[in-house]
């Protein structure tokens, strides 16, 4: 079933067009991640779906029903804002129970519902305590619990983990993943962190200046981004100028002085940017068929189970993700190659 369809949405705030021509749909049970840089319209889109902002054009259908004009609060959604506001004078229990207040539940039923969500989020130990004694991660868990306790058909999350430190973010991401697999709560999740989007999403939508420029599976958009802007949003990528040599239709990289021989995978345009993710660059100590080009190690950034190695080749620089325990030192001569076909982008947008 389709939980939400957004059709040709246009939103203008303070005479500025924030969103235009935006269409997508979210299936029931799906976790849909909206990824984009600052000011791309992510938060505006979420708030528009919640009914906080009016629209200047287009429609929003909830399970096929047009709710474009439905007032905020009467839509089947639950929104968690980026800045968490727990009630400081209420315990963890009362904070979680707050959205259920109007339902006149019996005390037993209320305890059951709060207990259930607390167990799911592993915050049972916080129920009798006040928010000032919570850590950042605990606060975020309680806020998430409050957004989830009243089962809405659609959960809207605005950068729920962005204010946390790296370690807690990783833990909560895993937790959230586990809960979503268990509950299959339809969710739109806004983030600017590609690792979060790729790791969590069933599908990812990339926003650029108020337009949705690509939608696809996490692996699909990462490995086959539609343009180099999207490629960069999803993770580190090397971009190198290329030209097609007309006589042979081979791909020539003028900066690296390298001719690529990749059979039929020649792009249908005469030049542009070649995109290579760092993990597609193979590095070896000797010249081999898979690693035919000489390069020089410029910098090595140790990063734990891999190192990001900058390699000079001609006047170009390629970054490789090296996981083997190679003995690399600055200035060392190595041989490199590509482990899969590169991406070709026609006209440079932003490099």
């Amino acid at each position, binding site marked *: 079933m389709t939980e939400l369809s957004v059709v040709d949405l246009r939103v203008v705030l303070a005479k500025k067009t924030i969103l235009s021509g935006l269409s997508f749909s979210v299936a029931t049970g799906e976790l849909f991640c909206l990824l984009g*840089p*600052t000011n791309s319209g992510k938060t505006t889109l979420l708030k528009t779906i919640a009914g906080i902002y009016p629209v200047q054009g287009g429609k929003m259908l909830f399970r096929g029903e047009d709710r474009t004009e439905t007032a905020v609060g009467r839509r089947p959604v639950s929104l968690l804002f980026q800045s968490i506001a727990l009630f400081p004078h209420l315990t963890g229990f009362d904070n979680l129970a707050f959205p259920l207040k109007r339902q006149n539940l019996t005390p037993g039923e209320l305890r059951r519902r709060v207990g259930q969500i607390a167990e799911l989020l592993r915050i049972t130990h916080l129920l009798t305590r006040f928010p000032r004694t919570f*850590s*950042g991660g605990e606060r975020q868990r309680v806020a998430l619990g409050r957004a989830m306790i009243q089962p809405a058909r659609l959960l809207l999350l605005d950068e729920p983990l962005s204010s*946390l*430190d*790296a*370690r*807690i973010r*990783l833990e909560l991401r895993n937790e959230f*993943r*586990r809960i979503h*697999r268990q509950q299959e709560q339809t969710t739109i999740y806004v983030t*600017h*962190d*590609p*690792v979060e989007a*790729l*790791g969590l999403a069933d599908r990812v939508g990339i926003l650029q200046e108020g337009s949705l420029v690509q939608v696809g599976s*996490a*692996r699909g958009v*990462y*490995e086959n981004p539609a343009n180099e802007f999207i490629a*960069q*949003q*999803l*993770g*580190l990528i090397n971009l190198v100028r290329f030209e097609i040599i007309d006589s042979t239709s081979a791909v020539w990289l003028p900066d690296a002085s390298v001719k690529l021989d990749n059979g039929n995978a020649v792009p249908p345009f005469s030049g542009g940017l070649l995109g290579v*993710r*760092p*993990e597609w660059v193979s590095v070896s100590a000797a010249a081999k068929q898979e690693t035919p080009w000489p390069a020089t190690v410029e*910098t090595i*950034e*140790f*990063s*734990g*189970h*891999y190192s*990001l190695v*900058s390699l000079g080749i001609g006047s170009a620089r390629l970054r490789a*993700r090296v*996981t083997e325990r190679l003995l690399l030192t600055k200035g060392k001569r190595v041989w490199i190659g590509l482990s899969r076909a590169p991406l070709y982008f026609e006209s440079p947008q932003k490099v």
Partner: protein
Amino acid sequence: MCALSINGVSKSFGRQRVVDDFSLAIESGQCVALLGPSGCGKSTILSLIAGFETPDTGTIFLEDRLLNGLPPQERNLGLLLQDLSVFTRMTVRQNLAFGLEARGYRRLEIARRVEAAAARFGIVDLLEVGAAELNFSEKQRIALARSLITEPSVLLLDEPMSSLDAADRIRMRSELKLIHSELRSTVLLVTHDQSEALSLADLVVVMRAGKIEQMGAPQAVFNQPGNTFVAEFLGEPPANLFKAELVYEGGRAELKTASVRFRTDRESFAASELTVSIRANDLKLSCEPGPVQVRVSDVEFLGAEDLVRFSLGDLALASLTPAGSFRAGERAFIPLGPILGLLLTSGRATESTCLEIVP
């Protein structure tokens, strides 16, 4: 020469001791990272050095000058904070010149240094632009250039990349690394992002609760964590950690959990209760049928690879595999052969070991 030395410094806020008898010496030209979870006291140490906070006990020396009691502006430190604090009502040139003017440099010298810094940081074209018009990564570059233009003895960086997008963060990281290797300035970096600390620093100081848990070269703390906290904290994704008992089966040493046994080549380990650590990238999975079968419970796409979660007996484990190799619900096999692991016990040095699953 020692550029900065911190000797037995403690600081409490109310009843909470945030920095607890902390000592650290930073060599000239070194880049040192204070790494730890939020609330471990790393930012407070930076504030104590900068002079925004006063230590309860202990001394701080910049080269041979005692900093205790000196106001912040007299400490000859460069400072780059999380929020950058670029003056948006000024042009880039005025921003760069600000610190030099405040220190009473001559006009010609100011102009010379501003031009040099602009060239070095690739912002020559931006000099006359109002800072309010800059995008975030430009602001970041201006802030960094400004903090270095007074040629401070030590540059203090407080989570300088935490508010950047992931792609910009890696770009900025490489830029910082390059600048540090060129200028050989002394840098103290505070961060909760381990890849930042590991890739930038010559010396990583892992902190918890106001104290140092371990310090050493990045490779050393990553590959030889001194205790379970460091082993658990360092590693994205985290290492597989579990408790095991050392027993002898038919004269051979084995590590036993409730339902899994590993052969180990460490025969003479004093303690019998151990924590075993296996990195997700050292634990391989294969589709080739073999005696050790597991069922994949979850596959998380991380971009460069997949994190595959599975259970082996009573152990919940994770393995890094090439993207798209396995799906949730499928069978997979752990190939027989040595698996690199670490053995940790309290009060003893960590030892590496080769483990073999007993089918």
